[in-house]
C-alpha cells in the first residue's frame, strides 16, 4: 500500500468515485424534488383556500417533482449494480475508467434533477396561484353579471393547459440528464475480464 498510484488501471480509490456517483445522484435529485414539492405545496395551500375544488388538478407539479426523485433512484441503482467487488486474490476489479464514468453519471442525473425540481416548484407555484386566482376572479364576475346569458369562455381551462405544458417542459430536462447518465453508466471496464 506504499505510494498507491492513481495511474493504475484499477486503483484502490476507484470505488470511492463510483460510490460518490451513487450518492450524488440520489442526494441531488431528491433535493431538487424536495424543493419542488415544498414550493408547489405552499402554492396549493394558498390557492386551495379560495378554490378547494381545483386542488386535485394542482397536484400535477407535485407528481412531476416526485418523478425527478425516481430518476435519481434509477441512476443510483443502475450504477450500484456495476460497482465490482475486489476479487478473491485481493486485486481490485473496478477500474478508474468505470469509476469516473459512474461519477459523471451520478452528477448528470443529480444536477439535472436539482435544476428541474427547483424549476418545477417555482413555475408550479406561480401557475397554481394563477389558476386559483383566475377561478376566483371569474366566479366574482359571474356574480356581478347575473343574467348576462353569455357562455363563460374556457379561459380557466386554457390557463391550466399552459400550466401543464410548462410542467412537462420543466420535467423534460431531468429526463435528458437521466438519458445521459444511463449511457455513461454503460461505460464499463473490469480488470481481469468480466
Amino acid at each position, binding site marked *: *500500500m506504499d*505510494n*498507491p*498510484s*492513481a*495511474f493504475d488501471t484499477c*486503483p*484502490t*480509490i476507484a*470505488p*470511492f468515485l463510483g*460510490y*460518490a456517483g*451513487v*450518492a450524488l445522484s*440520489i*442526494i441531488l435529485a*431528491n*433535493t431538487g*424534488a*424536495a*424543493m419542488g*414539492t*415544498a*414550493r*408547489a*405545496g*405552499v402554492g*396549493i*395551500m394558498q390557492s*386551495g*383556500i379560495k378554490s*378547494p375544488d381545483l*386542488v*386535485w388538478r394542482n*397536484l400535477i407539479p*407535485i*407528481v412531476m*417533482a*416526485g418523478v425527478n*426523485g*425516481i430518476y*435519481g*433512484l434509477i441512476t*443510483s*441503482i443502475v450504477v*450500484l449494480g456495476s*460497482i465490482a*467487488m*475486489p476479487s*478473491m*486474490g*485481493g*486485486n*481490485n476489479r473496478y477500474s478508474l475508467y468505470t469509476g469516473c464514468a459512474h461519477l459523471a453519471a451520478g452528477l448528470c442525473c443529480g444536477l439535472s434533477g436539482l435544476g428541474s425540481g427547483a424549476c418545477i416548484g417555482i413555475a408550479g407555484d406561480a401557475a397554481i396561484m394563477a389558476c386559483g386566482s383566475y377561478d376566483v376572479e371569474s366566479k366574482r364576475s359571474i356574480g356581478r353579471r347575473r343574467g348576462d346569458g353569455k357562455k363563460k369562455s374556457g379561459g380557466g381551462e386554457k390557463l391550466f393547459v399552459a400550466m401543464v405544458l410548462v410542467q412537462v417542459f420543466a420535467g423534460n430536462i431531468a429526463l435528458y440528464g437521466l438519458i445521459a447518465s444511463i449511457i455513461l453508466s454503460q461505460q464499463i471496464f473490469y480488470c481481469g475480464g468480466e
Partner: protein
Amino acid sequence: MADASSICKSDFCNAGWAEVLTHMSPYGFANFGVAFGLGLSIVGAAWGIWLTGSSLVGAAVKAPRIRSKNLISVIFCEATAIYGVIMAIILTNKIKEPELADSYLSANWDFNGFYYAGYGMFSAGLSVGLTNIASGVSVGIAGSSCAIADAQDASLFVKILIVEIFASALGIFGIIVGIIQSNACTFPVAAL
C-alpha cells in the same frame, strides 16, 4: 509524471488524491458514514418538526380543532429520523475488526476489500443523511401548509396530506439506496 522539483519535500505531503484517500482509515470512512447517516437525518427531521410545529400551534389559536389531526405531519417528520436510525444500526453491525489482534496487518490481507467496504459505508451514510435533510424540510413545509389550510377549510386536510406523502417518499428512496449500498460492504476479518 512528477519530477523531483515538483514533489513537496515534507514527510507529510501526499502525492495526489490516491494517497489522500488511502491514507485515511477505512474504519474512519465507515464510522463517518454512520455518523453522517444518523446525524444529518436527525437534522432533517428536526428542521421539519419545527417548521410544522410552529405553524400548527399558531393556526390552532384560532382553530383548535386542528390540533390532534395535524400531529400526523409531525409523525411523518419523525419517520425521517427513524430511517437514519435504521441505517446507523445496519452499518454499525457491519463494521467488524480483524480476528487477529496484532498491531499491524501483514501483506497478505485484502486491503482493497477494506477500502471498498469503507468507501461504500461512507457513501451509504451520506446518501441517507443528505436525502433525509431534503425530505425532512420538504415534509415540514408541506405539513405547515397542511395545518394552515386545515384551519381555514377542513376538507383541504386530506388533499394537502397527499403532498406530504410525496415528500416523505423521497426519504424512502434514500434509505433504499443506502441499504443496497451497505449490502455489498463487508470488512475482511481474516487474511487471504
